[in-house]
């Protein structure tokens, strides 16, 4: 086989970079696509969860006898059905998780730690019976004082959530428990010396609210546990292999006995990387001997599934009058929810990542509060810290009269920059996004009176990870592509394009599907902007594996050495005249001859993809503020981001637009409202206001392509970064419109009105 037969691109591509019709499109628009709640099995029961009405309460006893006595109730599960697990930290998402906490989050044990915390669950013949059964369960609670705010939770007198929680990361270790689970510190250079070099130093305190990922499809699953200890689970998830691992751990099963299938998914954004219903459904099915289906209501989704962390951030930046940033410092306090594990570490690492700084210090606190355990949400931890830093950068630019894009260009991280979080950057595209911003029509168009314009940049690392893929060549030369990463943002299309490019065949000849946990080796979840990159690498490797087999078969058929065969444009050809005169064998030819010449062709890859390229983006936004109502209207919005190589540009644009819109919601409206007893008052989309189409203009996008050298086609992940800049960009635009700096989110009409009113009232002498 010739050395050039591995599908390596020389820069020009036939399929990568095109926009074919999405392979899952017809099923989705016709309603055929099956989501988490769309499967029905014979004898299926309905499972429902009894949730704590209290934000913090000790559970003295749970009496399920009356529920079990109700006709139609098949079984009930409580804490007694789940084995307690020892403290064992395992990597999951952006932080380590502790199985001791996971089992308690799934079903409360000693205490209920937030309103909505599961306390018991019922399986019954109908939803009506299940609900009636829940009402019959008697729980003896001792209501305890609760704490929701991160700063209040850090106070010495705050109610303790976990009486055994000793702060990690502090030397010497504290001797008394607190709600601070961990303290982390990232330091580069000498910040005091850096601030001493500055002509201007600005410091501010910021706050952000917890916000939900807002996926349209609530959590749902169906479990079917058989008498021989085997089980099947169908669920909506970003990672069915991860679900399998967690469930097997919680139920004491071998992973080989649990087969998990990922349904189509109606959004995840990080929120479907953990388990909630799945272990409970399996336990109900194990005890009842019947399949059990569970779905969350929207109210339950808000009450009991993880939002992004609410935060309090103090940040300080020093700069010379010439616009050179000399030092940055920040203190980040992140809510973890009821159990430790906020994304404060990545928050620390991302805070100053867009800048080439010699002196940086960031300290982070991971703090438990009586709210649902936080979950990943696009670039977890980064939007909150970068909101603070990017707001101050804007203020510094105004202070010296420098264009904010120019100021960022003057200080931008680039290849060779030692990142504030430690490593030295390889090729990255921040400068390119800033240059595009400066040249963009949006940035050069004059504002209308009363409007404001803001810019901000953002960063996310991106990851690779364990990934498998298979390509099965059919007897007619078409291909079934099997991947293990659930398709949330168009990855099936992206993977088909990368396979087609490598194999040199028409993309229409490749049909993708997401395999269940029995069909592929372990594959990490869809998250961290890894799928187009890591599953793409796996698919490319699988295609190369298939090409090797095809070339070997052609060599056998032609009776020539395999290195005298090359794979070009989807067919085997003799490599030069010395190899002999043979008609090329296409994929279809070889598929037709497969049985008689040695058997079927299956290309496989199992990799641990490394070297994901980081992604930077820059956003421009124009706002108008209604001075009478306080409503901020997004008039124009442009996202510019480095994608490395956009495999399917429409999907990349969709990711950029989606991230921006979610960031707009975070900036302007979204917040959880609790009463004085810690009960959520707005657990629904009517009162928890995510943006809808009429709230936003068409989000313009510019894709910058600075190739990631690790990936054969240069791909970088794109899904995380676009949610990072919006909050600061909008706050900067509002400041431009009103002359008022908002440091607390959301900039909702009541807050804007209040700020306008405060600004009008002269301060007392």
């Amino acid at each position, binding site marked *: 086989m010739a050395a050039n037969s591995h599908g390596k691109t020389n820069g020009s591509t036939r399929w990568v970079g095109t926009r074919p019709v999405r392979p899952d499109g017809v099923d989705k628009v016709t309603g055929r696509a099956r989501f988490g709640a769309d499967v029905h099995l014979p004898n299926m029961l309905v499972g429902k969860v009894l949730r704590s009405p209290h934000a913090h309460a000790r559970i003295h006893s749970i009496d399920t006898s009356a529920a079990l006595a109700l006709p139609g109730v098949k079984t009930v599960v409580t804490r007694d059905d789940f084995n307690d697990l020892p403290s064992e930290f395992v*990597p999951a998402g952006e932080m380590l998780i502790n199985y001791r906490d996971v089992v308690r989050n799934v079903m409360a044990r000693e205490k209920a730690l937030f309103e909505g915390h599961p306390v018991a669950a019922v399986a019954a013949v109908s939803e009506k019976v299940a609900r009636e059964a829940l009402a019959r369960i008697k729980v003896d609670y001792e209501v305890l004082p609760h704490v929701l705010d991160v700063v209040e939770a850090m106070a010495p007198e705050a109610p303790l959530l976990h009486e055994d929680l000793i702060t990690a990361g502090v030397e010497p270790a504290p001797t008394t428990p607190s709600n601070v689970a961990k303290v982390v*510190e990232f330091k580069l250079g000498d910040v005091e010396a850096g601030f001493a070099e500055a002509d201007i130093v600005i410091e501010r305190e910021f706050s952000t609210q917890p916000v939900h990922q807002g996926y349209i499809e609530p959590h749902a699953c169906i479990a079917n546990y058989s008498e021989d200890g085997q089980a099947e689970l169908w669920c909506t998830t970003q990672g069915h292999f991860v679900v399998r691992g967690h469930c097997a751990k919680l139920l004491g099963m071998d992973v080989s006995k649990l087969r998990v299938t990922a349904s189509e998914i109606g959004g995840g954004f990080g929120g479907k990387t953990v388990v909630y219903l799945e272990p409970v459904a399996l336990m109900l099915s194990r005890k009842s001997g019947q399949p059990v289906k569970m779905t969350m209501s929207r109210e339950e989704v808000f009450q009991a599934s993880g939002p992004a962390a609410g935060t309090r951030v103090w940040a300080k930046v020093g700069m010379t009058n010439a616009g050179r940033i000399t030092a940055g410092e920040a203190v980040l306090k992140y809510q973890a929810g009821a159990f430790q594990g906020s994304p404060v570490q990545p928050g620390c690492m991302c805070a100053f990542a867009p800048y080439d700084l010699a002196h940086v210090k960031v300290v982070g606190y991971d703090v438990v509060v009586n709210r649902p355990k936080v979950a*990943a949400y696009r670039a977890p931890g980064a939007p909150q810290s970068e909101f603070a830093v990017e707001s101050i950068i804007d203020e510094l630019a105004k202070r010296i009269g420098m264009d904010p894009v120019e100021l960022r260009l003057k200080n931008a991280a680039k290849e060779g920059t030692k990142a504030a979080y*430690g*490593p*030295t950057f390889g090729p990255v595209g921040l400068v390119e996004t800033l240059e595009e911003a400066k040249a963009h029509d949006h940035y050069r168009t004059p504002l209308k009176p009363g409007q404001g314009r803001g810019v901000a940049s953002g960063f996310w690392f991106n990851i690779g990870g364990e990934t498998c893929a298979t390509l099965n060549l059919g007897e007619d030369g078409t291909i079934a592509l099997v991947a293990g990463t659930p398709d949330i943002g168009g990855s099936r299309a992206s993977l088909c394009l990368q396979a087609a490019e490598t194999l040199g065949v028409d993309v229409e000849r490749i049909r993708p599907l997401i395999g269940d946990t029995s069909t592929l080796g372990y594959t990490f979840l869809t998250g*961290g902007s890894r799928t187009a990159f890591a599953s793409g690498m796996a698919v490319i490797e699988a295609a190369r594996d298939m090409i090797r087999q095809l070339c070997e078969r052609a060599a056998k058929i032609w009776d020539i050495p395999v290195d005298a065969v090359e794979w070009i444009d989807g067919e085997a050809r003799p490599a030069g005249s010395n190899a002999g005169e043979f008609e090329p064998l296409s994929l279809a030819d070889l598929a037709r001859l497969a049985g008689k010449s040695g058997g079927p062709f299956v290309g496989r890859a199992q990799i641990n993809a490394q070297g994901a390229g980081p992604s930077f983006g820059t956003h421009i936004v124009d706002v108008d503020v209604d001075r009478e109502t306080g409503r901020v209207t997004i008039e124009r919005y442009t996202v510019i981001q480095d994608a490395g190589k956009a495999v399917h540009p429409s999907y990349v644009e969709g990711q950029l637009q989606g991230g921006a819109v979610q960031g707009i919601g975070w900036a302007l409206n979204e917040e959880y409202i609790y009463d004085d007893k810690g009960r959520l008052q707005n657990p629904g989309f009517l009162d928890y206001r995510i943006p809808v189409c009429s709230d936003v203009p068409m989000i313009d996008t510019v894709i910058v392509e600075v190739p990631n050298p690790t990936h054969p086609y240069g791909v970088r992940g794109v899904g995380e970064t676009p949610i990072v800049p919006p909050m600061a960009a909008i706050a900067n635009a509002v400041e431009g419109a009103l002359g008022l700096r908002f440091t607390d989110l959301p900039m909702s009409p009541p807050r804007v009105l209040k700020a306008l009113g405060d600004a009008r009232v002269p301060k007392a002498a």
Partner: protein
Amino acid sequence: MARVVFIGNFRQLAGGDAEAEIAASNVRDLLRRLGERYPALAPHLDEGIALAIDGEIHQDALFSPVRPDSEVCLMPKIAGG
């Protein structure tokens, strides 16, 4: 020898050292030698870490090569949403 950079809490676990020079041909060797030199760091090297080798992030990759002139930065493991 590779230059290992400690950031965040890893620096604390490395006795306050900002950097160390370690002779290693791959990640497994490097982690083993780091654990020998810094016993407080050793328990943290099995899980939950990532290495930026010459700026490229490697996670769970024991056999990724480390060159004599490599810069290796220990950092917390990264995922995302």
